[in-house]
């Protein structure tokens, strides 16, 4: 028995020691938004091919949480990439970073399958008519919990303006849930009730996170749902692209997007703006040079190809703000 224990201890110890020896590589810590997981996985592979002595460690979380890890938990990070560039500006600058680059964008689309009702009919001009039909079911994520959720609401709010039909939001959302929109001072405002009071009818499926709705579509529980273009693309779903005036994809319509607002149940006010990803190297980065190489790869042609294929179209040339490092200047234009 004693022997057995001794052997066991020896094995354990040798594992521990070996583990330490093999992890001699340089570790590059990348904190990023959840929706960047797929493209960053590719970038990681490419980067490790080019820098074999580097181990890229990625950590995905919601964008706000990702930034809080650096600013509140003082976690060391070499790269921070957020699904909303303005969060870097508002939460990290100037204390934790002094520049950022807008490098890719995303948009809200309506995903569906071949089996969805009226799938063959739906297009940019009639989607809200189809969602209105009584036998059509659709879904979105909870605006209290999920940026994709409140952005979907903004898209529907803006649709009233764009299609000049003031009953779109009433018919699609208000008749089927407890969500109520008001028009104040030239802006559409949705004041969210507590999540347990949303009370969706049979027509609507709400889930906490956008990813959970995918199963609803797969099980044919819903016909359509509002989702990021990148997610639809990465899951090989069919999707309908919406006009840039309402899909939150374009910096050109930033002023239009501002007209949509969501007040979350916590009191947090969110104003519509383009879904543009931002990347930066925080001031506390341990491997600044390698981190800049990583950003270079993201902005390079190879990197842009990855983002394009995975449904997050790159912004070319990328737009830099603040004190952008000299090494990156050739890849961006100053915003």
């Amino acid at each position, binding site marked *: 028995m004693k022997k057995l224990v001794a052997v066991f201890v020896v094995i354990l110890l040798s594992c521990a020691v070996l583990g330490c020896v093999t992890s001699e590589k340089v570790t590059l810590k990348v904190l990023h938004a959840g929706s960047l997981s797929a493209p960053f996985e590719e970038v990681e592979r490419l980067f490790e091919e080019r820098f074999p002595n580097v181990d890229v460690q990625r950590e995905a979380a919601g964008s706000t949480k990702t930034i809080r890890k650096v600013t509140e938990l003082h976690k060391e990070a070499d790269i921070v990439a957020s699904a909303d560039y303005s969060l870097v500006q508002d939460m990290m600058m100037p204390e934790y970073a002094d520049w950022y680059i807008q490098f890719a964008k995303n948009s809200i689309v309506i995903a569906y399958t071949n089996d969805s009702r009226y799938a063959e009919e739906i297009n940019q001009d009639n989607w809200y008519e189809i969602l209105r039909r009584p036998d059509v079911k659709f879904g979105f994520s*909870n605006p*209290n*919990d999920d940026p994709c959720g409140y952005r979907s609401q903004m898209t529907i709010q803006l649709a009233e303006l764009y299609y000049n039909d003031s009953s779109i939001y009433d018919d699609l959302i208000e008749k089927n849930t407890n969500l109520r929109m008001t028009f104040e001072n030239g802006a559409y405002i949705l004041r969210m009730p*507590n*999540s*347990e*009071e*949303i*009370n*969706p009818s*049979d027509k609507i*499926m*709400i*889930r*906490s996170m956008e990813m*959970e709705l995918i*199963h*609803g579509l*797969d*099980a*044919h*529980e819903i016909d359509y749902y509002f989702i990021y273009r990148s997610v639809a693309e990465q899951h090989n779903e069919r999707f309908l692209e919406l006009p840039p005036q309402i899909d939150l994809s374009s910096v050109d319509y930033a002023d239009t997007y501002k007209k949509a607002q969501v007040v*979350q*149940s*916590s009191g947090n006010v969110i104003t519509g703006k383009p879904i543009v990803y931002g990347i930066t190297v925080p001031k506390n980065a341990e491997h600044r040079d390698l981190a800049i190489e990583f950003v270079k790869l993201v902005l390079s042609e190879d990197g842009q190809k990855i983002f394009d294929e995975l449904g997050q179209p790159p912004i070319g040339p990328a737009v830099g703000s603040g004190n952008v490092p000299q090494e990156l200047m050739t890849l961006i234009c100053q915003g």
Partner: protein
Amino acid sequence: MLERSKLTLKMSQEKTILIFTLLGAIILAFIVIPIANTIATQVILDADALIKTAKDVAVLKSIWLSIYAAFLATLIALILGVPLAYLLARRDFWGKGSIESIIDVPIVIPHTVAGIALLTVFGSHGLIGYPLSNYIGFVDALPGIVVAMLFVSVPFLINSAREGFESVDPRLENVARSLGASRWRAICKVTIPLASRHILVGAIMSWARAISEFGAVVIIAYYPMIASTLTYERFLSEGLSASRPVAVLLMVVCLLVFILLRTVSARWGRYDRD
């Protein structure tokens, strides 16, 4: 000499008990500290929020719904699971080993996966959900919650009841039958009462497991919100300070129910030992 060896024996026994107590205390602390810490932090630092939460209709409704849905799931598990447990304990048949393994599968698979599987089958276009769709809806409704809870909790009841039946000597049942009782009567009057403590413990475990379920439930029924969903929801939208009182309240309610049921089952214990 003899006395002395007896003494060392006694001492070494004491030592064993001492070591066991120490190890036991560590694991007990591991369980108690997070629970006590959560409750104490809430009561000491933010008793107002707890009182406010205890008066919040949405919270009370969700806790009641959790308890009620878990109760329904346990009831179904009793009606359908106990007969199966009896067969597994008493009969040998081809494929018994695989059936026993299958019963344990819900314990092993990740809850989200269980939820997806259930949504696919019980959804309004699913294998079971579609034929029933005119009578009963599972998605975002109470039946969906019950189904998810039943799926993850029924193994505890079946396994415990099976152990109970195995612990009852089959000869007792045979004696009853030789005295003229039908099989049904013999089972009801002899076997089930003797195995009742195991069945009760299994039911409590199954009910408790059902209450704690979250991952499978949110996939098939985000609404109406059970207590675990509401806790998660409050955490996401308003943070820890809003979700903790809900969790504390659920903990306290469950603790009370647990103590009550354990007391009952301890009394029961005397019955089958005698």
